[in-house]
């Protein structure tokens, strides 16, 4: 198997100025912009027609666009008759796409493969359907549940396991940290965000509330909220041995894994098979199993990992994906967050582009958005949010309600 490297990355911005014009753009515009941004990013040059294959992931609009959009993507990029594999896996789709593209390059089948993820939210789908397809349609949506209401079940279980006030304080800490990163990323949704309170004020609101009292409305009103958006991001994979022909700063994909558990939350509470024993819906089994496998493939240990781009838009996904890195001890994850160990000076800087919620939660491209940021950090091109140590990164993506996880381990050398 050949070693694989990333030699180009592309992105559509998620800042307010760009998103205000989202009514002007279709999913095809996002695909073209991100793909050609990645092609242009190949410092020593890559002609569009040098691409041999593409793996494209979407969430949303394209599901009703003639069923299969491979030929459309090949066409709009001006790359006919290039083949395009199309897949969809909610928020983790670009991670699955990267996993498949990795195989195409590592096996020797192709030498230049484009990976692209995108989401267009409302051109064709209505709000209700879009919300529905984040869960299990048969036994969740069919009985009146959708993504936010299922997330609610997860969150109250997290309260039950770890204590509500501690969970909320960790959430506040992480969101304020996301603001710090986002304000240093011109592409991020949080670029222009000014917090309505300090972290101390948010913590104080919780400290003054008993565990069984209602959470003060003021807390929710002042907490920075995730921004769900649309757009695309892309990367170009090549064999590592050829990478320096494209760029002086390739980033190497040394570990990659994708694992599934049940899409239905209640099944995650009861799935009597050995590999999933000991995990419940708050543990997100797939993220642990995929991280372990990716670490093993990359021959990386937790102490080697220097930063992380996780699926951390929800506190219920931050806790398990952070635990899965094994950098904090599993039972100390909330303390790790509260101690600012995920911040710029912490042991494991996390979500350095603003995080998925602060950069702009973009279902079809969440994973490739994280890869984009990791590559910038490893090249030393992250500007005001540049990390001092950015040699080994773990990227984690999540699907739906903890349904599956993709994990990539990146190295700068």
């Amino acid at each position, binding site marked *: 198997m050949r070693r694989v490297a990333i030699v180009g990355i592309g992105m559509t911005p998620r800042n307010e100025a760009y998103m205000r014009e989202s009514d002007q753009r279709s999913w095809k515009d996002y695909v073209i912009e991100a793909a050609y941004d990645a092609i242009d990013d190949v410092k020593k040059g890559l002609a569009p027609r040098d691409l041999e294959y593409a793996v494209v992931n979407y969430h949303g609009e394209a599901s*009703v666009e003639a069923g299969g959009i491979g030929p459309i993507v090949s066409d709009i990029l001006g790359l006919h008759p290039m083949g395009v594999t199309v897949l969809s896996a909610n928020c983790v789709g670009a991670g699955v796409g990267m996993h498949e593209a990795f195989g195409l390059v590592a096996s020797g089948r192709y030498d230049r493969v484009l990976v692209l993820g995108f989401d267009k939210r409302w051109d064709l*789908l*209505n*709000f*209700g*359907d879009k*919300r*529905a*397809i984040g869960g299990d*349609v*048969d*036994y*969740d*949506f*069919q*009985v*009146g*549940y*959708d993504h*936010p*209401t*299922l997330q*609610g*079940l997860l*969150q*109250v*279980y997290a309260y*039950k396991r770890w204590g509500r006030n501690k969970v909320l304080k960790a959430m506040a800490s992480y969101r304020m940290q996301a603001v710090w990163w986002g304000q240093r990323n011109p592409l991020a949704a949080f670029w222009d965000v000014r917090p309505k309170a300090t972290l101390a004020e948010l913590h104080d609101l919780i400290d003054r509330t008993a565990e069984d009292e209602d959470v003060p409305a003021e807390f*929710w009103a002042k*907490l920075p*909220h995730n921004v769900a958006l649309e757009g695309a991001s892309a990367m170009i994979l090549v064999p590592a041995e050829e990478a320096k022909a494209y760029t002086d700063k390739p980033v190497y994909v040394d570990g990659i894994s994708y694992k599934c558990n049940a899409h*239905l*939350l*209640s*099944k995650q*509470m*009861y*799935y*009597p*098979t050995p590999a999933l024993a000991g995990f419940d819906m708050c543990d997100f089994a797939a993220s642990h199993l995929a991280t372990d496998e990716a670490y093993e493939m990359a021959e990386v240990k937790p102490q080697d990992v220097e930063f992380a781009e996780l699926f951390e838009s929800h506190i219920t996904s931050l806790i398990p994906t952070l635990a899965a890195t094994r950098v904090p001890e599993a039972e100390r994850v909330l303390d790790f967050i509260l101690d600012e160990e995920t911040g710029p000076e912490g042991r494991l800087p996390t979500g350095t582009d603003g995080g998925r919620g602060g950069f702009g939660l973009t279902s079809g491209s969440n994973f490739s958005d994280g890869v984009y940021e990791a590559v910038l950090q490893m090249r030393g091109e992250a500007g005001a949010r540049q990390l001092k140590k950015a040699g080994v990164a773990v990227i984690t993506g999540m699907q739906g309600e903890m349904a599956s996880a993709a994990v990539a381990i990146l190295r700068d050398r």
Partner: protein
Amino acid sequence: MNPLFPEGLYRHGVLRTTKAWRQRKERYRLLGTRCRACETLWWPGRKVCGKCNSRDVEDHEFSHQGELFVHHQGQLAWYVPPVQGFEVYGDTRILAMVKLPEGVYVGGTDLVDCPPEKARDGLKVRMVLRKLRREQNGNWQYGYMWVPEEPQS
């Protein structure tokens, strides 16, 4: 009635009458499966055992009693418009996951006929059949919901 959307029922693209009909035994009777090879119980039912991969499975009707495992009232952080077209019993929808004596969990599901302030994890509940929504042909679709074992007032 949702005050934000007082107009008539909205039709979701992913809801289909045939799907609802196909799953009627699950929704009316909590019919799942039991693996004859390893005796593992599964809810929802399945054709291949997730533990031993046997295809020798049979119907198993799960208990209609259980206990409330977790619940919320839909307003954890900010107002989320409810999924339109579904019946809401009472002023407040109580969203829940229920644990059955067999060890399996059912959820998302609804706790009904219970004042919101009386809902608490561990509450003993039993299954009832309630209207979920109207199907595309106008018929009512029914499904499981849960009420307190002891009436709460």
